[in-house]
C-alpha cells in the first residue's frame, strides 16, 4: 500500500522540482482554459465581455492566489523556495562584487584557519594511524613513578599481557635510530623495536613476505630479522621484488629482510616515519644499554594497548592500576612506587602527539578567534549593505511578502556566502595542511611524517562551522530587516542606517569584539615570541656560545670498541693541537638533544635511606675534560682524565642536587655509589645545569667515564672560532685519520638548544600568522565602520568645514572616533588576555603571562593599525566639498 503510493507520488514530486517551468506552464494553461470557458458561458448568459471577464476572475478568487494554493499542494514548497532564494542570492552577490569578494575572503580566512587546525587535530592527535582499523580502541601505555612518567620494562610488559582481561592485546614499541648499511653505502635510519605481535595486533599485512612470528621476540639477539617500510623498499632497494631473504646491516649487525610493510603505514610514532621494524629480542643491537628483556628495572617500552570492544579507558585504567599494585608487591626492589598509566592517543606522552598537543590546542583557540573576527567583519558588511537594500525590503514587505520569508531570504544569502567561503576554506586547508611539517624538527635519517587528515569528520565539522558562522554573521542583519517599521520606512527615504541611528551600537559592538579578540592574539603572540627569545638567551648551566656540538659516526663505519677508543684519542689529540680550540671531548649524548640519557637505579653506601628504595637517576657517559669543554664548573674534586679507563677504578662525578638529596649537602668525594649493580667512587661534584630540556627543574644527575661504560659518538668542542671554520678543520682531521669517516653537522650549543625549542617556536609561528590575519581583519572592520560613518555624516562634516574647521580638526575628529573604539576594544581584550594567557603557561619560559612590555607593544601595534584604518576615511572627509555636501 505505502509502496504503491510512493510509485505515484515520487515521480510527481521530482517533476515539480526538476520540470518546474513545464509544471507552471501547465498550471497557467489549465486556469486559462477554465477562464475561457467561464467567460464564454458568462457571455452566453448575457453579460458584456468585460463583465464576463471580471466575473470569471472573481469566481477564481484572485488568479495568483489560486495559483499559489495549487503550488502549495505540490508539497515541495520548502525546496522550491530555497532554490529561488539561492538563485536570488547569487544574483545579489553578483550585483555587488566588491562586497561579495571581501566577505568571502574574510570568511575564507576564518573557515580555512579552523579547517586546517581541525585537519591537524584529526590527522595528528585523533586518528594518527590511518591504516590501523581499530585505532579508536588504541591507547598509549607507560609507567609512572615519583619522578614522573617513564617507559615500561619488558618483564612488566609481559605481566600486563598475562594478567589483563580488558585489553585485547598489548604492543611494545621503541623508536630507535641506527646506522643502516647496505653494501658500501651507510646512512642514518629510524625504526622501531617492537613486540612480535606488532603487525598482527594493528591489522597490518605485509605486501611482501611475512611479519614477525611469536618466537621472534624470545632469546637474546636470536632473531636478526626485519620488516622494512614500503618507502625504504622503494628508495633503498628500488622496489626489488626479490628482496625477501636479503640482508642489511643495522649498527653493523646483519639482519635478514623478511617482509615489506604496505604503503601508507609509517609505524606508530606521531611525527616520524619508520623505515624498519625489528623484534624485541634484537634490542641490544640498537640500544647500547645491554640486554633488557630480563631486566625489570630497564624501562624502555613505549607501549600501546588495544582495548576490547566496549571497554572504556577508565575501566582499563582501573585494571592496569590493580596489576601494577600486584607487581609492586611482588617486585618491590624495582617496582616500588611504580604504576601503569593509559593515555588516549591524542595525549600520547612519548611521541609528537604529546609535544604538539599544547600547540594545537592554542592553534584551535586562535583559529576560532580568527573565525569570530571574520564573522564580525562580514556581519558588519551585511549591516552596511542592508542599509542599501532597505528600500528593496520595504517594497517587498509592502507588497505582502511575509517577514519570515524575507528572513529566510537573507539567511540564504548568508549561507551562500558561507558555503562559497567554505569551499575557499577547504582550498586553504588543502594547501596549508603540510605547513606544520615545516615546523617539526628534522634530523639526519629521520623522515618527518605529520599527516593532516581531511576526512569526512573534518568536512562535517567544517560544514558545521559554515552553518554556525552563517548564524553568527547573518542573523543580526536579518533580524534587523525583520524589524523594519513599514509606515516609518515609507515616510522617509533618506535617514540613517537600517533601524535608525539607535542601532549604530550593534556595528560598534561588532568592531569592538574584533579589536578585543585580535588584541588577545597580539598579546599571546608577543608573549610566546618573548619566551622563545628568553629560551635562546637563557643560561642552561653550560656554555652555549663557546661550545660546539657534533658527532662522528664510527659504528656505521664498522668500528669495534677498541678501534673507536684509539680513533677518539687520536682525533682529540689532533684537535687540541689546533689553534683556537681549547678542549674537545666525546660523550654518548650531548645535553638538550633528542637522544635521551641513560638511567639507572642507584644505591648509596652507608645511606640512611631504606635499602629497597632505589631511585632511578639519569646519567651521562662522558670522556676526559668533558665538563671543561661544556663549561660546567666543578664545585669540588676532579673530573675524568684519560686515566679513568676500563682498567682503572670505576668513578663518577655527581651534581649539586644529587649531593643535597643523597649526602645531605656534605661533600661526597670519596663516597661510593652503586650504578647498574656496579660500585663506583665519587671523585667530583659538578654544578647543576639543564640536561634534557630548558624547562626542566633542578634534578639529580651524574656523570661516568665513557671508557668505563659504552661507546660514544657525540663530540663537544670548546672554542671561540665560528662553527664553519671548525667544521672544515674537523673534517680535515677526521679524514686524515680515516678517509671513510666524516663528522656530522657542527653547530653551537646555542643553535642546538634553539632547535630543541621547536614546539614553542611552532606555536609562535602559527600564532604570528593567525594573529597577523586577525589584526588585518580587525583593521578592515575598523576601516569599514569609520568610512561608513564618514559617508553617512557628509552633511555634518561639510557644515563643520563651512564653519571654519580645518583639516587637522577633521582629522582629530575621525581619528578620535576610531581610537575610542580601539581603546574600548583593547580594554575588553586586555582583561580577556589577562585571563587567557595563563593557558600559554606550558609554553612560556621565564616570561610572566602578564608581561607589561608585551602588553604595551600589543597596544602600540593595535593603535598603529587603527590609525592606519582611520587615515583613508579621514583623508576622504577632508576632501568633502562643503557646498556640495550642504546642497544635498
Amino acid at each position: 500500500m505505502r509502496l504503491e503510493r510512493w510509485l505515484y507520488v515520487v515521480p510527481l514530486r521530482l517533476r515539480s522540482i526538476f520540470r518546474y517551468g513545464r509544471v507552471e506552464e501547465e498550471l497557467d494553461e489549465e486556469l486559462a482554459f477554465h477562464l475561457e470557458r467561464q467567460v464564454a458561458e458568462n457571455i452566453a448568459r448575457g453579460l458584456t465581455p468585460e463583465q464576463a471577464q471580471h466575473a470569471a476572475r472573481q469566481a477564481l478568487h484572485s488568479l495568483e492566489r489560486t495559483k499559489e494554493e495549487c503550488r502549495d499542494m505540490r508539497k515541495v514548497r520548502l525546496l522550491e523556495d530555497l532554490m529561488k532564494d539561492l538563485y536570488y542570492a547569487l544574483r545579489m552577490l553578483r550585483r555587488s562584487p566588491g562586497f561579495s569578494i571581501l566577505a568571502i575572503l574574510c570568511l575564507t580566512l576564518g573557515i580555512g584557519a579552523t579547517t586546517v587546525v581541525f585537519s591537524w587535530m584529526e590527522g595528528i592527535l585523533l586518528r594518527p594511524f590511518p591504516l590501523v582499523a581499530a585505532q579508536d580502541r588504541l591507547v598509549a601505555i607507560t609507567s609512572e613513578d615519583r619522578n614522573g612518567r617513564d617507559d615500561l620494562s619488558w618483564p612488566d610488559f609481559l605481566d600486563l599481557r598475562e594478567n589483563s582481561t580488558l585489553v585485547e592485546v598489548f604492543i611494545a614499541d621503541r623508536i630507535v635510530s641506527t646506522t643502516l648499511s647496505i653494501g658500501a653505502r651507510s646512512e642514518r635510519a629510524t625504526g622501531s623495536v617492537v613486540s612480535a605481535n606488532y603487525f598482527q595486533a594493528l591489522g597490518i599485512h605485509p605486501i611482501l613476505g611475512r611479519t614477525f612470528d611469536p618466537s621472534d621476540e624470545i632469546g637474546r639477539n636470536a632473531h636478526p630479522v626485519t620488516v622494512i617500510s614500503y618507502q625504504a623498499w622503494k628508495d633503498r632497494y628500488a622496489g626489488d621484488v626479490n628482496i625477501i631473504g636479503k640482508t642489511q646491516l643495522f649498527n653493523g649487525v646483519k639482519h635478514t629482510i623478511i617482509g615489506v610493510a604496505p604503503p601508507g603505514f609509517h609505524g606508530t610514532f606521531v611525527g616520524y616515519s619508520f623505515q624498519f621494524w625489528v623484534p624485541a629480542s634484537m634490542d641490544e643491537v640498537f640500544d647500547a644499554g645491554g640486554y633488557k628483556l630480563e631486566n625489570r628495572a630497564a624501562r624502555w617500552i613505549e607501549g600501546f594497548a588495544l582495548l576490547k570492544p566496549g571497554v572504556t579507558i577508565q575501566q582499563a585504567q582501573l585494571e592496569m592500576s590493580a596489576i601494577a599494585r600486584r607487581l609492586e608487591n611482588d617486585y618491590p626492589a624495582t617496582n616500588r612506587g611504580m604504576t601503569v598509566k593509559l593515555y588516549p592517543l591524542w595525549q600520547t606522552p612519548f611521541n609528537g602527539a604529546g609535544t604538539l598537543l599544547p600547540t594545537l590546542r592554542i592553534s584551535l583557540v586562535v583559529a576560532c578567534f580568527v573565525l569570530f573576527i571574520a564573522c564580525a567583519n562580514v556581519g558588519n558588511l551585511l549591516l552596511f549593505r542592508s542599509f542599501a537594500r532597505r528600500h528593496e525590503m520595504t517594497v517587498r514587505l509592502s507588497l505582502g511578502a511575509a517577514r519570515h520569508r524575507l528572513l529566510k531570504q537573507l539567511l540564504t544569502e548568508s549561507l551562500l556566502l558561507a558555503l562559497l567561503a567554505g569551499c575557499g576554506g577547504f582550498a586553504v586547508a588543502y594547501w596549508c595542511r603540510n605547513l606544520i611539517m615545516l615546523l617539526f624538527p628534522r634530523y639526519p635519517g629521520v623522515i618527518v611524517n605529520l599527516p593532516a587528515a581531511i576526512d569526512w569528520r573534518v568536512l562535517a565539522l567544517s560544514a558545521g562551522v559554515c552553518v554556525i558562522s552563517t548564524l553568527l554573521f547573518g542573523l543580526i542583519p536579518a533580524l534587523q530587516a525583520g524589524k523594519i517599521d513599514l509606515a516609518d520606512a515609507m515616510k522617509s527615504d533618506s535617514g540613517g542606517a537600517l533601524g535608525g541611528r539607535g542601532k549604530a551600537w550593534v556595528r560598534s559592538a561588532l568592531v569592538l569584539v574584533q579589536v578585543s579578540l585580535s588584541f588577545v592574539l597580539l598579546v599571546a603572540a608577543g608573549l610566546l615570541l618573548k619566551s622563545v627569545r628568553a629560551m635562546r638567551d637563557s643560561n642552561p648551566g653550560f656554555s652555549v656560545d663557546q661550545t660546539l656540538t657534533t658527532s662522528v659516526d664510527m659504528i656505521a663505519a664498522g668500528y669495534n670498541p677498541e678501534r673507536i677508543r684509539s680513533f677518539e684519542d687520536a682525533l682529540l689529540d689532533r684537535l687540541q693541537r689546533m689553534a683556537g680550540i681549547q678542549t674537545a671531548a666525546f660523550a654518548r649524548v650531548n645535553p638538550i638533544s633528542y637522544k635521551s640519557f641513560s638511567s639507572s637505579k642507584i644505591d648509596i653506601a652507608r645511606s640512611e635511606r631504606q635499602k629497597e628504595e632505589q631511585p632511578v637517576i639519569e646519567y651521562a657517559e662522558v670522556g676526559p675534560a668533558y665538563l671543561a669543554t661544556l663549561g660546567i664548573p666543578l664545585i669540588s674534586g676532579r673530573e675524568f682524565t684519560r686515566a679513568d679507563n676500563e682498567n682503572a677504578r670505576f668513578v663518577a662525578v655527581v651534581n649539586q642536587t644529587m649531593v643535597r638529596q643523597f649526602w645531605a649537602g656534605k661533600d661526597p668525594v670519596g663516597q661510593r655509589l652503586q650504578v647498574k649493580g656496579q660500585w663506583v667512587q665519587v671523585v667530583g661534584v659538578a654544578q647543576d645545569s639543564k640536561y634534557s630540556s630548558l624547562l626542566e627543574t633542578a634534578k639529580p644527575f651524574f656523570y661516568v667515564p665513557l671508557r668505563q661504560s659504552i661507546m660514544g659518538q657525540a663530540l663537544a668542542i670548546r672554542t671561540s672560532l665560528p662553527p664553519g671554520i671548525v667544521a672544515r678543520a674537523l673534517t680535515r682531521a677526521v679524514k686524515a685519520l680515516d678517509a671513510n669517516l666524516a663528522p656530522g653537522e657542527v653547530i653551537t650549543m646555542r643553535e642546538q638548544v634553539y632547535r630543541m625549542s621547536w614546539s614553542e617556536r611552532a606555536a609562535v609561528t602559527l600564532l604570528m600568522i593567525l594573529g597577523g590575519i586577525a589584526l588585518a581583519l580587525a583593521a578592515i572592520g575598523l576601516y569599514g565602520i569609520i568610512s561608513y560613518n564618514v559617508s553617512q555624516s557628509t552633511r555634518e562634516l561639510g557644515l563643520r568645514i563651512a564653519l571654519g574647521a580645518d583639516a587637522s580638526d577633521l582629522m582629530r575628529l575621525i581619528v578620535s572616533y576610531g581610537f575610542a573604539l580601539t581603546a574600548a576594544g583593547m580594554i575588553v581584550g586586555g582583561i580577556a588576555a589577562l585571563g587567557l594567557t595563563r593557558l600559554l603557561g606550558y609554553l612560556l619560559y621565564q616570561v610572566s603571562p602578564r608581561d607589561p612590555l608585551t602588553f604595551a607593544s600589543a597596544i602600540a601595534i593595535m593603535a598603529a593599525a587603527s590609525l592606519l584604518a582611520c587615515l583613508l576615511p579621514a583623508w576622504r572627509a577632508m576632501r568633502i566639498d562643503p557646498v556640495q555636501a550642504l546642497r544635498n
Partner: protein
Amino acid sequence: MSLVTETKNVSKPADFVQGTLDLLLLKILALEPLHGWAVSQRLTQVSGNILQVSDGSLYPALHKLEQEGWVRAEWKTSDLGRRAKFYSLTRLGRRQLASESANWERLSGAITSVVKLSEV
C-alpha cells in the same frame, strides 16, 4: 475561507468539509475523466446548487488529489478542439474513494439516526 460554502452559510469543521470535497471530486471523476471546468459544472449539477464549490477552491483541491496519487492528469483535446487537462481516477484513487464513501455512509448514517432520534 472554507473550501465549500453551503448556500445557508453554516460553518462546518474544516477537515470534515475537506474530506467531503475530496469524496465528491473522487466520485465525479470515477464516473468519467473530466477537465477542471467540466468538474466544476458537474459539481453544480449533481449537488443541485446546494453545495457551491468556488472555482478558486476547486483547482487546489484537484491538484491535491493529483499530488496524493489518487487521480492522474492527462492533456487531451477537449470537445471544442482545445487542449485541456483531464483528470481520471488511479487505482489508488479507487481505493481511496471506496474507503471514503464507506466512511461517509457510516458518518451520515450515524448523524441521520441521531437527527431522527431527536425528532421523536
